[in-house]
């Protein structure tokens, strides 16, 4: 009669879980004990029988049931959102970083005239026009001349340049 401890070690050896000193000890035991060898052989036969049984069992085709559970169509917008989602604070962090860079990179103590900015009026000679809060009209901008009329605030929407005359 084999001890329970030896049985556990045989199972572990059969499953390839026994290492080192325990494995060496069991192999010595197997060399000396025919009952242990017989038990190991039985375990091997049992394992082969189980594998043969598993191969005979047909694997269930799950694709049909999975497809039925999927939504009919995923909208493109949802797909994009799902694939690239940033936390809400990320936008604020990026904006704060850009502001910090702009503040630190801005020239200090330079001339009072504004530096060139991003072109606002494409295709025009006037690259930037900033009149504060005063309304203005570009009356002409061609090869003959460029004329910018600065209007009084109450004249906004008057419609005709001549209305600005005093």
């Amino acid at each position: 009669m084999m001890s329970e401890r030896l049985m556990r070690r045989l199972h572990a050896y059969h499953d390839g879980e026994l290492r080192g000193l325990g494995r060496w000890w069991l192999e010595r035991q197997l060399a000396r004990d025919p009952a242990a060898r017989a038990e190991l052989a039985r375990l091997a036969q049992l394992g082969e029988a189980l594998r043969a049984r598993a191969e005979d069992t047909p694997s269930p085709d799950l694709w049909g049931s999975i497809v039925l559970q999927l939504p009919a169509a995923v909208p493109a917008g949802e797909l994009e959102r799902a694939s690239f989602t940033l936390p809400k604070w990320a936008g604020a962090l990026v904006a704060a970083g850009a502001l910090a860079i702009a503040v630190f990179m801005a020239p200090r103590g330079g001339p009072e005239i504004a530096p060139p900015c991003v072109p606002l009026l494409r295709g025009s000679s006037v690259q930037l026009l900033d009149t504060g809060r005063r309304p203005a009209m570009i009356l002409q901008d061609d090869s003959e001349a460029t004329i910018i009329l600065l209007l009084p605030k109450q004249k906004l929407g008057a419609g005709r340049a001549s209305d600005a005359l005093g």
Partner: protein
Amino acid sequence: MRWGEAKRGLRVAVWALVFGLTAAGAAAQEFVPPAAGAPAQKSPARFEVTVLQAKRAPGVVDAQARRVNELLAKRGLSYGTLRVFAHQRDELMLGEIGAVMTPNGKPYRFRPLDRGDTGFLVAIDWGSTKVDYRIEPGVPFLVGGQPADGYQLWVMLELN
């Protein structure tokens, strides 16, 4: 000669060739003659600035102001009186600032920022008005219309 030494010598020769070609290319670019009509690299921008006082009431139109009067009249701004308050010429290098005082006590300042094929990008600052403008020779830039002391002010900037 050993193979290692020959390899080292070959490597040095290749690097010398690369440096030589790069330097020759850079030198060739330096000596490309400027295109016809382009302003010389070191020449200043020659500006002419005119400050004008305009009134609708009939009066005197100064001889220097006749061209401005014609330009404004084409756009519906017909003045009976147009007088030159100040007129000056400035030669400015890139980054230099020219200025002229206007009757409303605010200086009209202009600064060439960049040189183009035929003209300059100029930053103009007049009170709260700021303009970046690509000025070309013979194309006057006029800005104004705001009242001051019973007149309307206009400033004309030209590149000669």
